[in-house]
Each structure stands twice: as C-alpha cells, then as structure tokens.
C-alpha cells in the first residue's frame, strides 16, 4: 500500500512547492528598510545644482511618496502618466530621486512629459540610492508622517497597485499620525 501512497504523496508535495516557487517573483526582494527611518541625504536639486534637496520633507508630519527613476529606465516611462495622474488626483506629494542619470536628459524628460514631483534630488553617482537599497528602477517608497518607510513597490506604479497596496496603508498611516 505504502509503495503507491508514498511516491504519489511526494509528487503532490513537489507540485505544491513548485507552484508556490514559480509564482514568486525572483527579482523582487523585501526591503530591510521597511518599518525603519528613511535614509537621510543631502543632494543637489535636479533643476538647479545650487539648490539642495534633503530628506526633511519626508519627515514633515505628512504621508509622502519617494520615487526612484531615470531616463534610461523603460518602466519609469511606463509609469510616468500614472504619476501625473496622482499629482492631479491625490493629496500625497511625490518626492523623487533621479538615479544614475544625465542631468540634461532628465530635465528634458520632465519638460516634455510633465513634472509630477514636488522636488527631485539628483543622484548622479548613485551613492544615495545605495543607502536606500535601490536596485531596479522604478522603485516607489511610501513614507509615513514620522519619516519611516512603510512600503516599497518595485516595478511601475499602476492604478491597481495604488488601490490595493498604497491606499489602505496611506489611510492607516494618516489615522495613526498625531
């Protein structure tokens, strides 16, 4: 009897393991920053190198988004219209990090496609991106009013992801904020 049950059982268990394994995204790793303070930075602004952009707007008692993008990143181009829509329809300000990019190309991008950001820090050598654990743009961090990272989305931001993952967390963070 066991001669038949055992192999069939092992086979069924393997199917379960493979089904779970194959449905996971191997390129998406959970960020160790979740629940921790957003990394501090001081960088020149993309628009004007003499102006400094820091992490302080992320700790200003309001829920914010921190979006990492670059002009060489096709996913960023894909998500850009949705960011523009968020700017029009949502009260959550979007701050951004322009990562490993050319300043001229990035400025041209914002001029042509529109600028959804409240401020953009220019991280030309990618040093600040390392502190944020950035590895695949576009990445979008959700930051609560106290400046803690509460969620990270790797891949273009879509209306679907926004409704399912961001809105409930934003509502929760706003409820908990003083």
């Amino acid at each position, binding site marked *: 009897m066991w001669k038949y049950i055992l192999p069939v059982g092992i086979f069924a268990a393997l199917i379960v393991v493979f089904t779970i394994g194959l449905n996971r995204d191997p390129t998406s790793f959970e960020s160790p920053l979740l629940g921790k303070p957003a990394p501090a930075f001081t960088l020149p602004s993309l628009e004007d190198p003499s102006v400094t952009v820091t992490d302080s707007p992320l700790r200003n008692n309001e829920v914010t988004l921190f979006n990492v993008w670059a002009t060489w990143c096709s996913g960023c181009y894909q998500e850009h219209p949705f960011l523009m829509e968020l700017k029009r329809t949502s009260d959550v300000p979007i701050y951004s990090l322009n990562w490993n990019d050319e300043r001229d190309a990035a400025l041209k991008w914002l001029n042509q496609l529109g600028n959804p950001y409240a401020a953009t820090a220019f991280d030309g050598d*990618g040093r600040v*991106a390392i502190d944020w*654990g950035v590895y695949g743009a576009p990445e979008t961090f959700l930051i609560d009013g106290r400046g803690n990272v509460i969620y990270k989305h790797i891949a273009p931001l879509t209306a679907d992801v926004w409704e399912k993952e961001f809105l409930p967390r934003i509502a929760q963070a706003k409820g908990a904020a003083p």
Partner: protein
Amino acid sequence: MMNAASRSMVRASLFGLMLSTLFAMSASAIDTETPFNDPILDARYDKLIHELRCMVCLNGTIADSRVDLAADLRREVHRMVADGQTEDEIKTFMQQRYGDSILYNPPVQPNTWALWAAPTVFLLIGLAVVGRIVWQRRNLVVADESSLHEEDHA
C-alpha cells in the same frame, strides 16, 4: 610537412589562446577600480566583490557584472576597504540596505535552516533507500541459494 593530427592540435591550441585572451580581456574590463597594491586590502576587496550579489542580474556577483549598480557597489566596497573597514562591517553595511539576498552565501539563520539542512537530509533519504534495496537483494540471494540446494537434493 604537418600531418592532419598535428595540424588540428595547432588549431586547437590557437583557439584556446584566443578564448583565454578573450576571457582575460573581459575580466579586466569589468572592474575599473584601481588596485591598492597592498596584498591584504586587495584580497579583502577581491573576496568581497565575489561574495556580493548583483541584485539586478541575480545569478552573478558584482565582480561579474557590467551593470551600473554593480560598478557603484564595487566603488563603495573599494572606498570602505580603503577606509580600513573589515569584511564583516562591509557585509553588514550591504545587508542593512539590500537585505540578506545581497549575500551570495546565504547566512545560517532560522529562515535558511531548511536550505542548509536539505543536502544532508536528501543524502540520508538516499542512503536509507539504497540500504533498503541492498537489504532486500540480500534476502533474494539467500532464497536463490536455498533453491539451488534443493535442486541438488532432487
């Protein structure tokens, strides 16, 4: 006058030379950080870049990748080694930012126990199966011998 065999040997060794030159060229072109000219620091740097995962390419280390991020991380490792930081300090720095996944050797901790134990567990299962088969075969041989003896008697 060359015979066919020696000609193909020459051809094979030329091909080998070409291949090795190609690999040597690509290896030197990836890492553009300047050597420390200090055997201890150079060894530490070299070990670290071969133990940190290139998060974009998954199955490679930052030593093997031309991706921008890998170059940025090599530069950062180089800077930290130059600052005199230890291997553990640099690995912890990376782990705090990118998570355990950046370590090419998974650390032994509760969520990787199954991973580390798996080879031993599978080896034991294999040994048990082989042991069982050998045990059953041994009984078979005894049965055959006794039937032979019976024939002798007959």
